[in-house]
């Protein structure tokens, strides 16, 4: 006869306010098989857990049901408490009477009745739980870091310094991410390249980091501790071993009129190029779409130009190079793919739920640029060697207008969140401009200044008080070209008057969005993401750097808008989680896996076809003389992830999912409906 202990938690007010916990405990006390039923203010507190341990010992409980919050919150806590009192942890379950009951209902009677039902359903399930023991699987002590921006770099370095191997995959020709495009960085006005380049070189020289730039993740199989990742090494057109990065080919290339992605189209680059001087690895890439030779070849014509091949002393140029695929075994994956800026043009990367700013000219008005383009203008290694010049006519702007919240905090355009960093970098831009062009006028249209970091508010105040930036509170309604001036139509809500500015240049502080293609990457990793494409963390407060998929971690702006200091600290946090994972010899995994009853299995192998992990193998059943009686299905517990698809598919019901058996489901249905 089962002896189950039921513990109903008040969770302070959270449950107690709408659910009569004492009544629930009393009702559960009457249920056959329940040997102990109490309610307590805070079950997850130490005294709360003591109640469980004491009751297990005193009443030799065979199972425990804690009616409290969601199992996602404290299932581990209560299972640990149960097992420390000698009870098998997998006979301890939770009834979710908070998120699924007290918090979403107001009427006390129906909430209490629901709480009783949910608790009784769990009691019936626990009656049919069997003691299970965790599955131990080996861990590959190597980590895959996707994305070579500052977050990816930091995570890779910390993990490698912690003794594990790292494979760092970067989509672009060089690591460095958006940080490498910045001029100075707030709040210290450090030169971005000066603090970033050493880290990039450190990655390149680190014995335990294998850097794969100009590469992308093609597919991911396996599970925590045992991932198999296929990486596509895109054809560079340059043999990595032969090339010593002398750059002769880039100088020899005659076609130098191609807009440089690194310079956001403001600068030009040749068809064979290294994105920026401090690139790591310092290897050029052939732009196959724009190289005149390859274009001629694709049209079957004679080879038009071989300038780069002739210039290269080491014969490193190799147009025959094809994409290559490499498979890596890793135990953990860190997603650090960073962000992209919201488009100021009409097209939003094909996304139907985002709209451009027609009222700001859809990006067609010359000298209306975004924050990253301003960074390239201000950067010493930029197309204008650090001089702020108008892209249209190269003149120095006398008046620059900066617009905060372009895309951000604008549900009408499809983005309702605040991108967090723009208040800071706009203050920085105003400061840089005032430093370089003392007579120039910097006008910033803002709604609220959100500068909450260490030394942040002081930074924006300095821009206003000492650097003479003019802050006008009000969003701009529209702007239009009038001659070679940009008329900005705004309103000063503090002064209560329309506020118009004739600007020579307008910088739009556009919203931060995750990188394009994040959805397909998340699906390859079977990780969930939100409406905008940001990766969903396991728990916003308690597990911010993990995802719900064990073994996959997240760092930097791919999870939410984030500045450099936060990205770096988050990357180090992620690295500590990965190193924590690698620190134990074997990994313990939940034993909720499928098991085949060989006696009744007819060997139809439907289960094998539906299993996404290939966990089903064929097993011969022999008699004592060794003759094969029949071949049945068998599940490898190490590979099975416990999805249960096979169980629902098996025609003869001869495979069961431990912890979620059919019998347990019937029991829950009956407990509710009678």
């Amino acid at each position: 006869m089962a002896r189950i202990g039921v513990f109903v938690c008040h969770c302070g007010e959270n449950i107690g306010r709408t659910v009569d916990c004492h009544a629930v405990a009393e009702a559960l006390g009457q249920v056959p098989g329940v040997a102990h039923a109490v309610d307590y203010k805070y079950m997850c507190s130490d005294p709360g857990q003591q109640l469980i341990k004491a009751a297990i010992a005193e009443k030799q409980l065979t199972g425990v049901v804690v009616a409290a919050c969601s199992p996602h919150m404290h299932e581990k806590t209560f299972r640990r408490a149960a097992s420390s009192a000698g009870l098998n942890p997998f006979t301890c379950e939770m009834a979710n009477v908070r998120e699924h009951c007290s918090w979403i209902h107001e009427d006390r009677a129906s909430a209490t009745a629901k709480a009783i039902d949910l608790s009784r359903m769990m009691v019936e399930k626990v009656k049919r739980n069997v003691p299970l023991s965790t599955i131990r699987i080996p861990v590959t002590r190597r980590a895959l870091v996707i994305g070579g921006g500052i977050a990816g770099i930091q995570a890779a370095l910390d993990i490698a310094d912690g003794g594990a191997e790292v494979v760092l995959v970067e989509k672009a020709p060089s690591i460095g991410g958006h940080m490498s495009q910045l001029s100075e960085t707030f709040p210290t006005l450090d030169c971005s390249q000066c603090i970033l380049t050493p880290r990039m070189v450190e990655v390149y020289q680190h014995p335990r980091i294998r850097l794969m730039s100009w590469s992308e993740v093609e597919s991911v199989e396996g599970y925590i501790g045992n991932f198999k990742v296929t990486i596509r090494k895109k054809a560079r057109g340059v043999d990595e071993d032969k090339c010593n990065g002398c750059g002769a080919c880039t100088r020899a290339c005659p076609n130098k009129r191609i807009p440089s992605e690194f310079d956001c189209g403001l600068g030009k680059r040749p068809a064979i190029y290294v994105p920026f001087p401090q690139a790591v690895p310092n290897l050029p890439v052939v732009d196959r779409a724009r190289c005149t030779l390859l274009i001629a070849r694709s049209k079957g014509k004679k080879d038009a130009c071989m300038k780069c091949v002739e210039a290269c002393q080491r014969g490193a140029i190799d147009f025959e190079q094809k994409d290559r695929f490499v498979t890596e075994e890793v135990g953990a994956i860190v997603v650090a793919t960073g962000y992209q800026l919201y488009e100021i043009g009409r097209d939003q990367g094909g996304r139907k739920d985002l709209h451009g700013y027609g009222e700001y000219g859809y990006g067609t008005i010359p000298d209306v640029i975004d924050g990253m383009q301003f960074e390239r203008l201000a950067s010493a290694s930029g197309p204008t060697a650090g001089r702020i010049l108008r892209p249209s006519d190269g003149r120095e702007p006398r008046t620059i207008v900066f617009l905060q919240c372009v895309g951000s905090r604008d549900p009408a355009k499809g983005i309702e969140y605040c991108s967090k960093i723009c208040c800071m970098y706009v203050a920085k831009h105003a400061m840089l401009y005032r430093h370089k062009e003392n007579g120039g006028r910097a006008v910033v249209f803002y709604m609220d200044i959100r500068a909450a970091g260490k030394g942040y508010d002081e930074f924006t105040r300095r821009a206003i008080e000492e650097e003479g930036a003019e802050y006008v509170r009000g969003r701009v309604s529209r702007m239009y070209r009038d001659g070679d001036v940009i008329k900005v139509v705004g309103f000063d809500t503090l002064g209560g008057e329309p506020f118009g500015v004739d600007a020579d240049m307008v910088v739009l502080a556009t919203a931060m969005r995750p990188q394009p293609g994040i959805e397909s990457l998340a699906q390859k990793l079977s990780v969930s993401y939100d409406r905008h494409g940001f990766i969903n963390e396991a728990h916003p407060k308690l597990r911010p750097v993990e995802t719900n998929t064990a073994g996959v971690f997240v760092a930097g702006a791919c999870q939410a808008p984030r500045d450099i200091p936060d990205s770096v600290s988050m990357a180090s946090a992620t690295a500590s989680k990965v190193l924590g994972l690698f620190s134990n010899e074997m990994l313990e995994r939940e034993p909720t896996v499928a098991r085949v009853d060989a006696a009744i299995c007819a060997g139809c192998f439907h289960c094998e076809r539906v299993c996404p992990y290939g966990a089903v193998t064929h097993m011969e059943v022999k008699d004592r003389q060794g003759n094969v009686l029949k071949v049945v299905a068998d599940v490898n517990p190490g590979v099975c992830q416990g999805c249960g698809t096979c169980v629902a598919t098996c025609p003869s019901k001869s495979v069961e999912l431990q912890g979620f058996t059919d019998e347990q489901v019937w029991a829950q249905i009956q407990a509710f409906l009678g």
Partner: protein
Amino acid sequence: MSAHEDAHHPVPRTLADKVRAATGLNPARCYQCGKCSAGCPMAAETTLRPHDVMRLVNQDRPDRLMDDESIWLCLGCETCAARCPNECEPARVTDAVREIVAAARPDAAPRAIRAFHAAFLDQIRKHGRLGEMGLIMGYKLRSGHLFADAAAAPGMMSRGKLAFVADKVEDVEDVRRIFAGCAAHGEEG
């Protein structure tokens, strides 16, 4: 409970509740960014611009909206609604406020504008369509601008632009029933 009211506002008490009940819009969405007022063509001639109107609705200050003629100078050009990041539709909120204010104080609107709307609606109630002569006469009588545009009459006439006889709607009773129906709905609406 009508579709516009939600569980928390059973009976519209504040001005914001009344606006929400009338339009289904939630004035609290406005975060006072001023983008509507920046684009408002009448901002130069009014003291209470669209974002001020939204503020006074959220602060439940019908008195200030009544004592100022600004809400009557709204052209209904929908620029504010087109630009609003939170889709508060200040234009429709202003319409609702005008309806509420006029119910409380019929003479709140400036005389000329009241005269124009009254003359306009009177024309439709009588003929179902607008006779421009009838509108101008009705407007002049009510607004006291007896000789406004008088000089223009001959020019209009010579260009065949003055339709003396306003062509009528045959079933003008049907139009009058609509006016009555809306008025009745107005009371209990």
